[in-house]
């Protein structure tokens, strides 16, 4: 790009903008930075007064402890539960959404009713669900958590995907039907490629929902399938908090979402803005 001489006034405004953006970025990134730093510090450094900006040396003993004691299994549990449940919700939800969008299943109001299920405050239903789970022996099982997160994510997936599917030009599907595809092939070869950005964005959100859920995981798990957020609470003690573990675990817990968002970033922007236009 050719660097042209900007008029002084424009240059000043631009500089101010960058300054503003820089300040905001620093402000937002600081807690993340602090978290990472604590996770690399020794106990002495953590409690050092005045606080140390950078640990004396990068050491991984805080992480080592998590692996040695098996605490990281909570991350694995979360990964399994979140990915399986959002996978199921995405597949089932997209098929439901297709039916709503293309066959008008349930008339005008079914879609609205479905999304209204998502408005229920979780705390209002957690105890009835707990009782049901106890009755059916689902407490503290992968199956129980996966079932629950799938159920909670389905309305969201259906709602979002219905919007994306409605926007796929009908002619594309009809042309494929005439050209020799059956309905399932049309969904796979025409609808899926067309809604892929929306699908990616939606799956990041469903994954994040299951990943971040604390309430249900707390009530519905005991020892077997403790998830990452619940595990984290174990480090907050009555007497003292295990800051080293908290920081290291938090870093590990942030990574999957971080990876998911960076991989999907391209789709996320497009997917979310697609939905924003038509909705």
């Amino acid at each position, binding site marked *: 790009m050719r660097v042209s001489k900007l008029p002084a006034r424009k240059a000043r405004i631009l500089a101010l903008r960058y300054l503003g953006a820089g300040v905001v970025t620093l402000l937002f990134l600081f807690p993340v930075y602090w978290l990472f730093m604590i996770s690399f510090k020794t106990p002495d450094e953590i409690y050092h007064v005045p606080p140390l900006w950078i640990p004396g040396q990068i050491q991984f003993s805080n992480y080592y402890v998590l692996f040695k004691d098996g605490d990281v299994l909570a991350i694995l549990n979360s990964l399994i539960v979140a990915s399986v449940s959002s996978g199921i919700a995405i597949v089932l939800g997209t098929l439901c959404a297709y039916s709503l969008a293309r066959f008008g299943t349930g008339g005008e109001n079914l879609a609205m009713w479905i999304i209204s299920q998502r408005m229920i405050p979780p705390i209002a239903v957690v105890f009835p669900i707990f009782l049901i789970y106890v009755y059916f022996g689902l407490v503290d099982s992968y199956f129980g958590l996966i079932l629950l997160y799938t159920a909670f994510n389905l309305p969201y997936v259906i709602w979002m995907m219905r919007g994306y599917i409605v926007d796929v*030009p009908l*002619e594309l599907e*009809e*042309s*494929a039907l*005439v*050209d*020799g595809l059956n309905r399932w*092939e049309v969904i796979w070869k025409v609808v899926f490629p*067309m809604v892929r950005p929306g699908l990616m964005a939606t799956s990041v959100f469903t994954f994040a929902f299951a990943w971040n859920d604390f309430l249900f995981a707390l009530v519905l798990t005991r020892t077997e399938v403790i998830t990452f957020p619940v595990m984290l609470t174990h480090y907050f003690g009555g007497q003292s908090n295990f800051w080293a573990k908290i920081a290291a675990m938090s870093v590990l817990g942030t990574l999957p979402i971080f990876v998911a968002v960076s991989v999907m970033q391209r789709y996320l922007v497009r997917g979310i803005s697609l939905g924003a236009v038509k909705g």
Partner: protein
Amino acid sequence: MADVKLSGVHKYYGNVHAVRGVDLTITDGEFAVLVGPSGCGKSTLLRTIAGLEDPDSGAIAIGGAVVNDLRPRERNIAMVFQNYALYPYLTVNENIAFGLRARKTPEIEIRKRVSEAAEMLGIGNLLQRYPRQLSGGQRQRVAIGRAIVRKADLFLFDEPLSNLDAQLRDEMRAEIKRLHHEITTTMIYVTHDQIEAMTLADRIVLLRDGKIEQQGAPLELFEQPRTGFVAGFLGSPSINLIPATLKTDGPVAAVVFQSGGELKLPSAKAMSLAGAQGREILVGIRPQHFSRAGGGPLRNGVVSYSAVADLIQPTGTRTFTTIKIGGVDAVAELQAHDVRSHGERIDLAIDLNRVVLIDPVSGVVIA
């Protein structure tokens, strides 16, 4: 190759009766154009043939076999849509091959047919592009290419040219006509554009409110319309309709305009009007049947008429001139230099041999 036979086809969308009892036979290799104003049921009828809509009653047969219960993909038809329906995530090559892949055609055969079609349509150099990198006309060619590689029994087109600008539309129209000469497959083509219908069709099927108003060869419909609707729909500028009263006296007949003045009808017309004295009619005169009077003796059935030129619209070859006749505005299509200025008095000759006389209530052409 196949003929198409519709009998008693009805289609409702809720309360909307979109197709109201259509009987239609299209012979093998024919180019049939379904034409009519927007909303008259053309697309619905075409989609019913494709199997994209189920008729509420009636039978559809392709190549002699009733296909009502067959899915679109089982009917061996190819269809070109108004918005091209190209898959944006596939290259031109993959778009054209799409239908062949869906039918598990061997790759060698696919490659051969795609390059043949690309050759025929002059898009060989675009095969690796994506649809978004093409112009409207190129997209249209790709859409047609996708249809022709299929070697289907029947081609359906739903307003394929309506998104193109005027010049490109003329070009593609000629190309589609040439295509039909080359591949001679039965084609059914939907348009609301009467010029497209006239120029492309072996047979025009003119629809109105879900029913066939009239069908036949283009010039047959143009010259012998059975109703005022047909007369008015075909032709540009459209036919002039002037209210008048019939005056008959033995073998002689004339139309008398309400604002005064009368035109004597040719004897061929007069014969069929015996006993219609005093009947109210609309006189339909096409703009092309006006000409500047040369001063010599008038041919049989041609009458003279003097009028004042109002609006003058030159097109280069012809000049459309608005005049008053029988108290209403009428358009006369004259030679480019026949009329010079607004307000000029001109002597016209009107060829009444092909005048149509329409019953104003029923809309039926009576002579």
